[in-house]
């Protein structure tokens, strides 16, 4: 082959014999190795470059000459046949050009072959990058699997279809609620339902989910052994790639302990009604503006002549009276009415959604029930009740003080009666 042709090739070309003596060295190699033709012709390749795997290369040259066909050689000990240092702007781990060699018969009579040296650095870099990415992916997958296991064993999670049928349940949830996974699959999460939960909560839940919104709330649930617990529940809708909602995922967090603590904190230990602290918190919440849309009324109740009960029958009987009074209140009023022991023999009731007329009716009903009730050791007692409806410009203090004034009025007017907010009634 003409030397000028070899010099125009964009691959390294060496013509050599079976002993690796160099007969030709093209311009590509001269430029990349900085070794001029004159410096290498007649010398042995393995003498010039000690990295050359002479035994392997010689064997392949002999095979080429025998087969009279090309053979292929990918240097093994080092990734190159002829060392060509490379400097790249982009950092990588390769210091030398990565090479692949094709060995073709050149002059069979003289036993010469042509080594074509191809630069495969770019594809090797791409391969290294790909391997790195694959390694990262494998690591991420391993972590993901590990995370999934951690999630499965530690996070109470349910997946339902859009009809609310359970399609997946984490081991943590199955174990906590005491169900086999197979028992839960296909069922509705209402299997955990507690009768005390108002249906409004679930109505609100489905309404939000149907709109594609996330729902969060505190739910009282039942375990398989009949015990109840409180869960903070977060339910999220999930979508497919086309943006179509496909399923819901509910994450349950047990808040029973917190609920018990909260309950202790806001409960009067004697009557088990809410305490004054809870009343204050509720009033603050109401007058923060969040719940102003609904009408609201309040009763303040005082047991008539309670001091005498304590003086005549003793404090133990007095405590019994307070407990039975609280039970009568709970039995007489609606579930949604909030009953509070303010202190001593004074009680309060918050009546959400009640206007003054409804509140007066409830108060009168309570007064009559108390009047009829026969208290242990003590017999019959009466109570006085002040009833007021929240007014537009009320704040927590004015609302309370007005109701307190009405209670005072009921007492001064002779007790065993209710006194209501006539001004508010007129406005209503």
């Amino acid at each position, binding site marked *: 082959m003409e030397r000028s042709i070899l010099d125009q090739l964009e691959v390294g070309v060496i013509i050599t014999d079976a002993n690796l003596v160099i007969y030709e060295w093209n311009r590509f190699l001269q430029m990349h190795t900085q070794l001029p033709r004159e410096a290498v012709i007649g010398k042995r390749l393995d003498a010039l470059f000690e990295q050359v795997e002479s035994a392997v290369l010689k064997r392949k040259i002999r095979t080429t000459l025998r087969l009279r066909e090309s053979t292929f050689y990918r240097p*093994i000990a080092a990734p190159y046949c002829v060392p060509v240092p490379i400097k790249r702007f982009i950092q990588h781990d390769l210091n030398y050009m990565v090479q692949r060699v094709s060995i073709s018969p050149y002059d069979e009579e003289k036993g010469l072959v042509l080594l074509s040296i191809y630069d495969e650095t770019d594809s090797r870099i791409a391969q290294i990058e790909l391997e790195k990415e694959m390694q990262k992916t494998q690591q991420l997958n391993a972590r993901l699997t590990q995370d999934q296991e951690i999630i499965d064993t530690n996070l109470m999670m349910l997946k339902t279809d859009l009809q609310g049928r359970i399609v997946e349940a984490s081991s943590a949830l199955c174990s906590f609620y005491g169900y086999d996974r197979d028992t839960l699959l296909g069922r509705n999460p209402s299997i955990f339902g507690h009768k005390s939960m108002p249906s409004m909560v679930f109505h609100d839940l489905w309404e939000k989910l149907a709109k594609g919104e996330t729902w969060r709330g505190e739910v009282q649930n039942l375990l398989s052994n009949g015990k109840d617990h409180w869960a903070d529940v977060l339910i999220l809708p999930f979508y497919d790639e086309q943006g179509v909602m496909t399923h819901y995922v509910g994450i349950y967090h047990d808040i029973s302990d917190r609920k018990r603590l909260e309950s202790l904190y806001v409960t009067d230990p004697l009557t088990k009604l809410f305490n004054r602290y809870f009343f204050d918190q509720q009033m603050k919440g109401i007058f923060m503006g969040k719940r102003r849309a609904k009408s609201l009324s309040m009763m303040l109740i005082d047991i008539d002549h309670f001091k005498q009960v304590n003086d005549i029958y003793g404090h133990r009987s007095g405590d019994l009276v307070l407990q039975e009074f609280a039970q009568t209140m709970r039995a007489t009023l609606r579930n949604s009415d909030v009953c509070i022991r303010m202190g001593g023999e004074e009680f309060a009731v918050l009546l959400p959604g009640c206007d003054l007329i409804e509140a007066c009716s409830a108060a009168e009903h309570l007064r009559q029930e108390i009047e009829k009730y026969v208290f242990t050791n003590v017999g019959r007692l009466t109570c006085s009740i002040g009833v007021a409806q929240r007014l537009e410009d009320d704040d927590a203090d004015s609302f309370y003080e007005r109701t307190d004034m009405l209670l005072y009025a009921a007492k001064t007017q002779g007790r065993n009666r209710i006194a209501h907010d006539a001004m508010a009634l007129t406005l209503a």
Partner: protein
Amino acid sequence: MLTPLQKEILQELVNIAFGSATASMAELMDAFATLSVPSIHFLPIEQFNEHLRTVVCDDQPLYLSQQVFTGSMKGETIFILEQTSVDNLVRHLYTDEEQITQAHINDAVLEVNNILSVTTIGKLAEIMKMQTNFMVPTLRIFADREFADLSELAEYDAVIIIETLMRFEQEQICGHLLILTASAMMQELQHALDQIAGEMM
């Protein structure tokens, strides 16, 4: 498929090709080598994967080397060696002192494939008076028999299977050389074999 006479002639041609391959293999292995008379089968491509599953062991990694040949004669060879044979090959090819890496092992398999492919396909091209050129062989290693995802073979519709046993002194190397080609090429081969049969008459 081939007539009994065509098959007989092809068998003879492959025998001659393998004779040449034996000499090259002996040189490669630096040991006295014998190659058994190869057995030849033909398969439609649909039965190819099933055949692969029957010829290899369950419990050994498999080295599968592929080499494309182009030109007026074109197709692809697949050379399969099981791990035991690869171990035997490497034991002969490298001395105990050498640090044998996976790259050395891969190179040995590729080299054997190259020798067998070039001699066999070269001989067939010669008798069909066709030109062919060999591409760089590639190697894949499969840990089990789930290797046969060879969907890239779809353009071929005929398979010639040449099985041979190579012996190097005490060691045996059992290899399967598969030639995949298109039916048009098979027709050319049949035509060439008929011509040889005519010349022999």
